[in-house]
């Protein structure tokens, strides 16, 4: 079968964004607060380039992806998330290889970017599996490189599944839905 993202027929899920589950975890509840705290701590680990700390948040069965966005019009105008192609298509092992690389000769991040990950609009719901939570957050990243006074930046929605594992929360699924069809960022040598 041929993937035909061009026509309306394909990719039923292409419009799916945001929160799916309806069993909402109320903002301000204990679970919500701990998860929000975790998202902040995770962002700090990445912004401070403590990659080992970051990897500690990841589950072994991690699925970490970033689908493409495609500009469409008319009846298909909202079906703009293309999951046949991705900017990231990672699992736990491939993430480890990426962080390992960053500790050696990864010139794309040596010298490192000065990054700032703003996490807002966090919405949480329970998954069908007990102890798993669907966490949707908005992400705005500014990235400063070298002595360039103009930063690169990217905005995205992150659709995560966080899993409660002995007292802490770990990341089992992350889908990063970027907001551009053609990225203004030179590369994704940073994690989102």
């Amino acid at each position, binding site marked *: 079968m041929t993937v035909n993202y061009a026509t309306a027929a394909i990719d039923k899920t292409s419009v799916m964004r945001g929160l799916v589950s309806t069993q909402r975890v109320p903002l301000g509840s204990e679970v919500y607060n701990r998860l929000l705290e975790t998202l902040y701590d995770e962002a700090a680990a990445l912004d401070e380039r403590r990659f080992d700390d970051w990897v500690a948040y990841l589950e072994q069965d991690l699925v970490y992806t970033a689908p493409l966005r495609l500009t469409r019009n008319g009846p298909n105008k909202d079906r703009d998330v293309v999951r*046949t192609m991705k900017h*990231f298509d990672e699992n736990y092992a491939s993430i480890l290889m990426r962080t390992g690389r960053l500790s050696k000769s990864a010139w794309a991040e040596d010298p490192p970017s000065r990054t700032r990950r703003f996490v807002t609009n966090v919405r949480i719901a329970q998954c069908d599996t007990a102890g798993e939570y669907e966490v949707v957050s908005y992400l705005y990243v500014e990235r400063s490189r070298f002595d360039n006074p103009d930063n690169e930046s990217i905005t995205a929605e992150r659709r995560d599944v966080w899993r409660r594992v002995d007292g802490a929360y770990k990341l089992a699924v992350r889908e990063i839905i970027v907001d551009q069809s*053609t990225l203004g960022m*030179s590369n994704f040598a940073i994690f989102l």
Partner: protein
Amino acid sequence: MLHKAGLTLSDGTTLDDLINRDMNEVSLRVMNDKELYELEMERVFARTWLLLGHESEIPKPGDYVMRDMAEDNVIVSRARDGEVHVMLNVCPHRGMKVCTAEAGNAAAHRCIYHGWAFRSDGSFIGAPIEKEQMHGNKHSKDELGLKKARVHLYGGLIFATWSKDLSFEDYLGDAKFYLDQLFCRTDNGLEMLGPPQRFVLPCNWKIPGEQSGSDGFHTLTLHRSLMEGGIMGGTAESIYDTAPGMYGVDISVPQGHTLRCLEAAQTFKMFADISFEGKTTEERLNLLTPPGVTKDMIPQLFKNLSEAQVNQLATIPPQVGGMFPNILIAFIFAPRMDGGASGALSLHTYVPRGPDKVEFINFIFAEKDAPEDVKRDMLQNAIWSTGTSGTIEQDDADTWPQIMRNSRGHMSKTMTLKYQALHGHERPEGWVGGGDLYPGFTKDDTQWAWWSAYYDLMAEA
């Protein structure tokens, strides 16, 4: 036949000042000159063939994708007749885009500004209120269609050109023998796995362009992490001794296309203990199938390629290279530890977006007949290595803009790019394919061939 008028910039600089063919040096200034850029649009991008996509993107009549030929936005569409058409996405009425989506399916494209409508082959249907004849009386309807480019499909790849006379065969030249091994080896050919990754870099198109002329040497240092990762022969410590992947046969043709053919057996340490000596082509192919090709597809190779071509594919296959002016080929072996299907098939185009910006377009493929799980692995491999987040090409994308930054300096722009480690043509015994051949350690010959092709086109008024 055009006559050679040469090229002189308004400050008196000539093409020979910029490209010194005696010394094999190119002035860094070429990367940052508005005037030169305008000439490139005319003499390079409006004259040669350009890669826009693959027909598997638009299987049905009415399917279209929006692409760019340099800075000209075009619609690539499959018409009712099943033919692929490429037409300028500029309304003949007042210049609006006739198509506003990146992909879709439409029997007709109606311009949203005043409603002029066009068929999927670009022909003009009419303007609203037919009786008022709002398309005027100075042009007949058949003069009012969208501007068409010439189209050629090669291995399903969609090429187009504004040139009236350049044949695709002349464009390919002797590169065909090698490219067939990559694009035309299986019964149903390649399939694009999804829309291309697209991102923009702050550098001139020729910075990635000259690298696409088979710059193998930069792999050792810029892509050092490849070795550190332990995939290739050697380690971080030993790479400068073992120089993995640096030995093979480089190829160029006068059209500026280049390829690097590597003995896969030598490239990856996992094969180090396997000898290909005395093995038949078939045995070799079974030991190390070309990326994306499954064992049961091997018979297709024999069917679609000449014996000489299969033989090369089995022994010292083309893996990376480029097609002039702005195509990079990465059909690479990339063994996986987890036993998944190995290798990645990806093509890039570096599309000019002004003198100081380039769009990096990453097309990712699999063999259409491969099973879904193999396609899935191929996709993952390509994303892992190339494009947006590619652990190899991240480093390129971060390096190129720094060269661009240097090209701004008054003193810096007088510095030169040097291509002075030259091997010179030498035909390995028993080699069948054509072109200029550079066996041994990868040097500057192929990149200089890229600049020579650039010179030839730019010198023609």
